[in-house]
């Protein structure tokens, strides 16, 4: 899919993105997840599928906790 992280590269650094374990936090909870990242400048990319899928589910779960 076009929105998948691997199809993107960092336009600033002209680098292919790589999966990297990244820290996430919400409502005082912390967790890590592998997402695409620019290996040079460190910019993180969250594809729509992730934002509106797993992340949205997690948001809801944490809000209900």
């Amino acid at each position, binding site marked *: 899919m076009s929105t998948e992280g691997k*199809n993107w*590269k960092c336009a600033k650094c002209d680098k292919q993105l790589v999966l990297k374990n990244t820290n996430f*936090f919400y409502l005082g909870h912390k967790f890590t997840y592998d997402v695409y990242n620019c290996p040079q400048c460190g*910019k*993180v990319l969250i594809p729509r599928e992730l934002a*509106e899928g797993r992340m949205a589910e997690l948001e809801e779960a944490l809000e209900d906790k």
Partner: protein
Amino acid sequence: MKLEDATRYTAKCFNGEPASCSYACPFHLDIRSFLEKVSKGRWVPAYKVLRNAVNFPVLVSVLCDEPCRKHCQRTLLGDEALAMRDLEAACIKYAKNTKPELFAIPPKSERVAVIGAGVAGLACALNLAQKKYSVTVFEKESGWGGYLPNGENLSSHPRFADFDRDFALQFSAVDVEFRYGVEIKALEELAEFDAIYVATGKNGNSFGLLDSWDAELLTTSENKVFMGGTLCGVSKMEGIAQGIRASKIIEAFLQTGKASLMNVFVYDKKNCERYLKHDGAVSVPRVIVSSPEGYTEEEAKKEAARCLLCDCDYCIASCEMLQKFRKKPQKIAVEVATDMQVVGTLASRALTRQTYSCNICGHCKSVCPEDVDIGALLQFSRTARKNAGGESYPAAFHDFWLREMDFAVTEGFLAAAPQGKKTCEYAFFPGCQLGAFNPDYVLKSYEFLRSKYDCGILLNCCGAPAYWAGDESLLNENREKIWQAWNEMGQPTLVFACATCESIFNMFLPEIKRVSLYALLAEEEGLSPIRTYDEAVVFDPCNARNNHGLETGVRKLATKAGITLHELKEPNRCCGYGGHIRLANPSLYEEITQHRAEASDKPYIVYCVNCQDVFARRDKECSHILDLVFDLKKGLKVPTLEQKRANSLEVKKILMKKECGIDFEPETHEWDGLELLISDEIQKDMENKLISAADLKEAIWQAESSGYKFYNESEDLFMCSMIKPVITYWVQYRKTAPQTYEIVSAYCHRIHFKEEVKP
């Protein structure tokens, strides 16, 4: 927060409590539960309920004068009350197993004397013996039962054989010593006993203690001597009930050395008058007993099924939110309190979603027989949560509206008396959304007000977003701001176009005199509103509840237009907008807005611009009353979030020029000049997610100027993010011309990530 701070909101809720009939019953028999079991032919469980409440079911089913029937809510429908005694008799007859339960408790050493083997004494003796106290009953006659109200011995009653058999049955599982033919002349004779219950019957020996008798604790001036029954002037049935009560008080006395009600469930008799409305319940006549033997099984079941099982759930039954969460009002209150005792992020707050899913619409209060307002309780919870703050506060639920409010009270603000004046008698307070939806709503209304009254303008947000977010300090700040502007304008009467603004002012600025725009318009002879529909329904907003001037004003205008008006079955239901629940509970929001849109197939006439927004989005045919008054309904589309802000600024610009002669220069941003190409489909999706095109412009501008963006070669697409404190926005776009971008996708999330960007 103390538990009572929350539970006081629902203290009067009686959901789950006994019905009115049970309060009238001397034994407080759970009649609802009894009849429900009888109606299903569950004779043994029904019998147990009866037996445990009355001790001697046979006698009671014959001699009770049924005070419950006077408080049977069936009678409100014009029906005869449930035939309680006949049903009790049927239950006793059809219950196959009436053997008393054996109580596996070790025997206790304390000894209790009961003077009198009438039913009052027997009831007390039976219960204490069940608790394994050592009980001795003294009776001067030769057998049990006592007297009938006419003074004759119970044994003269034609059914005595049955009563006798029942007494024997009930005492068959306990050890009680009966000493017949023994008359106690002085209490000293019973010195060896730890407690004494005097139940010697009407005109019986009270050992000189009657004057000191306490009707509540059944105590006398003698420490261990208790008294009750017809001796104390109560009826025979009440005597039995009192005997049961005495057993509990005596037990407390034996356990603690002090008589108390600790084992007694205290009933407020007044509750026998607490009735429900029973809208929609159908009348069903009493089932006639077909033979002298009493009801057949089928007849009894049918009669019992007439019970309305009166238990209030009015609020839950009629509020989508309460129905979704299925929690009883009292439970919600307890959770409001316990949630606030939770600290840290590991423990969970059980009520968060529900707290922010309430429309704070007052509907529950309007249907509650006791005026319980669950919305007020959840509003209280919102405020408590905001005050507690901390990392676990779900800021994302209200962030969007708080940003809109911030805009309205800063850039959108205007306070001006009519040109050339410093003060005025009236000032129009249209609220932040009216002009945002359609500038003409404000401009035309103001033109009208200005031509008729000494009227200025006050553009600001009333503070509803802060209120619904539970943000007291923000609400106060805004209150101060309005207060100051209002004073500077010479304390004008404010003219409102929004019922929510009015109710917020009513709560937080009650000193300010208020009048509704629609009431003023309705008074105006010269107006001829346009007939947008032949027939319509006025959709009254929740905040107009009890605001009769407003409701009648709007109807007058619509009628003047020649529209035939119909009324909704349930007035003042919240359209869904109230409480800003949309982000906290999108599916509930959808459900509610759909229900409201479908409440009538006629078009709606609304007078709250938020209702209008909700219905327009659902393609429900509707007009604002101002469309009729000023002939403004010309296929106006719901403006986008970005347009709304622009509309608000437009209104301010025009009015500022008019009254102050100043050219208003709105704040400018580097990204203002960008042009976005957004398809209808994406626009709709953005509106649903409350993503404004202005945010996308900002994000794109940042990405384009800093270079931090992603590129997808095969699709020739760019993507970038904009991280705001509460929400992170993402946009995918294509550059189609200088300063022009085609939006391919826009979305957002609330979870934050840690990004260490190196230059």
